[in-house]
């Protein structure tokens, strides 16, 4: 996708003016938050599970090589193939090669953020292979040539009227008389159209929520069952996954599954949780003839051992963006990258470079709500701050900020001088405040006074006043 993170401010300004988007974002702010809270409330051991999940993923990251090799051996033993891709480009080539060998014309796809990260659909189309998204949300945005605005609800920025319009535009078989006003009618329509595509597809591509070292299985969770049809009806099943998806055992996977859906949608479990291990065995009634796993690094190993390592615990539940006041205000597309919200603000600079993603870790109030709901207890604000530090070290911080900081720090580090300057400044500002005790315009503070009044200071500074009164 085209990276528009450098234009975050303009993107955000547009989003704030978009009445339809603002209405749609209300669903995130209200719906997801309330559902997660209820699910958490209903599970007394939720906090203990978070600690357990964090410890488990931390352990895995410390022994990532070991578990990946164990996983690879198990996949091979079950008759599958494992491919290692260091970069997005390598991953795309590997997948294209698998498709070509299968003489694929059409591939179906389960919802997968890593395939967005490597921009797989565009690449396959360029090489004459049609990629059909089968998750309803992904299907809708594919019709619109858009990218996901949320990692678990890719079309959350749209309303049902817009979807109806898209369906009528593309599904030309639809009679005008057909009522599509209810979401369930839209769902049936998409389902009817997609059903045929599953049978036509030569290759089915899914992501993975987990890879299990103990058994060589890949695991997907969905609510529509589209992933199951994608991976079992095509001749070839390709799993694309980044390397940190690995967990040691089935038991470990089960522990984290208890956190995943609750944190994401507030469900106890997603409707479908599907484990796949290798291709169809002789005694199986169905399943793919071939099973491939493409393991993608794309910057992950560079995060190991850095101050961003903890980000690799992320299980992509979306709770951080669901609880983020900035995401609620501007939505996912404003971030201009694959991963929006707080987790994107940390991950995107790792993938695309801080020079092109500087706004993302800066556009946060550090309210900490993301960290407080993260099932893996990832310290997202701390890591956003680390990105600001990298930016500052590389001299990428905007000049106005640097000068402002330099001016402020000069005084803050000289208490006697600061006291004199502050005393004078506050008396002046206090006088300007007049009887109203506020200023509606203030030079150099336009960012503030464009939208709100500036409270006037009371007059003498506290530290000076206190010590004068007490005769210190």
């Amino acid at each position: 996708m085209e990276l528009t993170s450098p234009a975050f401010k303009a993107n955000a300004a547009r989003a704030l003016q978009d009445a339809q988007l603002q209405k749609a974002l209300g669903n995130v702010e209200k719906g997801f938050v309330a559902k997660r809270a209820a699910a958490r409330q209903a599970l007394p051991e939720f906090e203990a599970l978070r600690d357990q999940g964090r410890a488990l993923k931390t352990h895995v990251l410390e022994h990532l090589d070991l578990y990946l090799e164990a996983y690879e051996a198990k996949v091979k033993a079950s008759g599958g193939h494992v491919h290692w891709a260091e970069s997005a480009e390598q991953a795309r080539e590997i997948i294209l090669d698998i498709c070509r060998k299968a003489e694929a014309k059409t591939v179906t796809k389960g919802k997968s953020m890593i395939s967005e990260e490597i921009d797989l659909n565009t690449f396959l189309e360029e090489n004459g292979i049609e990629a059909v998204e089968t998750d309803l949300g992904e299907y809708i945005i594919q019709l619109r040539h858009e990218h996901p605005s949320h990692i678990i609800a890719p079309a959350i920025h749209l309303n049902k009227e817009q979807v109806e319009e898209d369906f009528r535009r593309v599904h030309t078989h639809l009679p005008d008389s057909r009522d599509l006003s209810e979401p369930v009618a839209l769902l049936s329509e998409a389902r009817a159209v997609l059903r045929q595509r599953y049978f036509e597809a030569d290759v089915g591509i899914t992501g993975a929520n987990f890879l299990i070292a103990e058994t060589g299985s890949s695991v997907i969770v969905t609510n529509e069952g589209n992933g199951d049809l994608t991976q079992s009806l095509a001749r070839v099943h390709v799993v694309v996954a980044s390397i940190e998806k690995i967990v040691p055992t089935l038991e470990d996977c089960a522990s984290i599954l208890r956190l995943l859906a609750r944190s994401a949608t507030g469900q106890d479990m997603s409707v479908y949780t599907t484990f796949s291990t290798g291709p169809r065995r002789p005694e199986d009634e169905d399943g793919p003839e071939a099973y491939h796993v493409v393991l993608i690094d794309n910057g992950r190993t560079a995060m190991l051992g850095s101050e961003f390592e903890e980000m690799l615990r992320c299980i992509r539940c979306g709770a951080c963006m669901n609880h983020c006041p900035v995401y609620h205000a501007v939505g996912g597309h404003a971030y201009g990258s694959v991963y929006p919200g707080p987790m994107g603000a940390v991950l995107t600079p790792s993938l695309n470079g801080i020079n092109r993603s500087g706004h993302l870790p800066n556009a946060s109030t550090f309210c900490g709500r993301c960290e407080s709901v993260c099932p893996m207890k990832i310290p997202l604000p701390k890591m956003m701050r680390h990105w600001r530090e990298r930016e500052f070290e590389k001299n990428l911080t905007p000049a106005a900020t640097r000068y402002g900081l330099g001016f402020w720090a000069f005084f803050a580090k000289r208490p006697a001088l600061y006291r004199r300057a502050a005393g004078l400044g506050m008396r002046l500002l206090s006088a300007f405040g007049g009887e109203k005790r506020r200023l509606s315009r203030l030079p150099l503070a336009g960012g503030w006074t464009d939208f709100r009044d500036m409270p006037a200071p009371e007059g003498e500074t506290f530290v000076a006043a206190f010590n004068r009164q007490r005769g210190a």
Partner: protein
Amino acid sequence: MTDMPPEAASPRVGLFATCLVDLFRPSVGFSAVKLLEEAGCRVEVPMAQTCCGQPAYNSGDRADAADLARQVIEVFEGFDYVVAPSGSCAAMLKKHYPELLSGDARWAERAERFSDKVFELVSFLTDIRKVVRVEAAYQGSVTYHDSCSGLRELGISAQPRKLLATVEGLELREMKDSDICCGFGGTFCIKYSDISNAIVSKKTVNIEASGADLLLAGDMGCLMNMAGKLKREGSAIEVRHVAEVLAGMTDRPPIAGTASRRER
């Protein structure tokens, strides 16, 4: 009024006023002094204090932030306790100074020892000085905003409500989503002013809907943001730091003044 046993020594408390209270709202500083003295503390306000360093720390400027951390520690480490009328600045001193100075062999341990002494004002009164009620009166209804750093980094939520419940005549009317950010975010509100405005605009709707006539919180940054927005919207709701009400010092004009007829 405190339930502390009489033999508990009267501790020497260094009041870290915070730059915004020092510059904009001395009333909060005097309220804090009154509350601390009523809780049996001997209070001093060192002249050599400026700012906790958050503007630098949160802008990625670790060097200046570390300089200020060392400056604050030097000035305040001799006290029995260091108290700040702000969850955000207290969390900076208590939680972030040790992290900031952890790589500095000479300062890491000092920062850790210093951290143990630092508290936010209201939680210090209730949790350390065991204050269970205040001698104050306020005739009217108030609503309380939970500032993010105090709430999530220091666990401040029940303490102010507990003490507010003992203020004579005061009625607490909880607003919806009191625990959601007001959009201030330090330099965020200047750097991304339109997003900040969108967030604070949602907050003022909830404040208005509470039906309270006074908004309280424990952090001057959030208070200035919400007061500035309320006044710009022509709201009649007044705004004060929670310490002013707890100390019974509500005689000064509120933050950003009172609403005159609809302005603008």
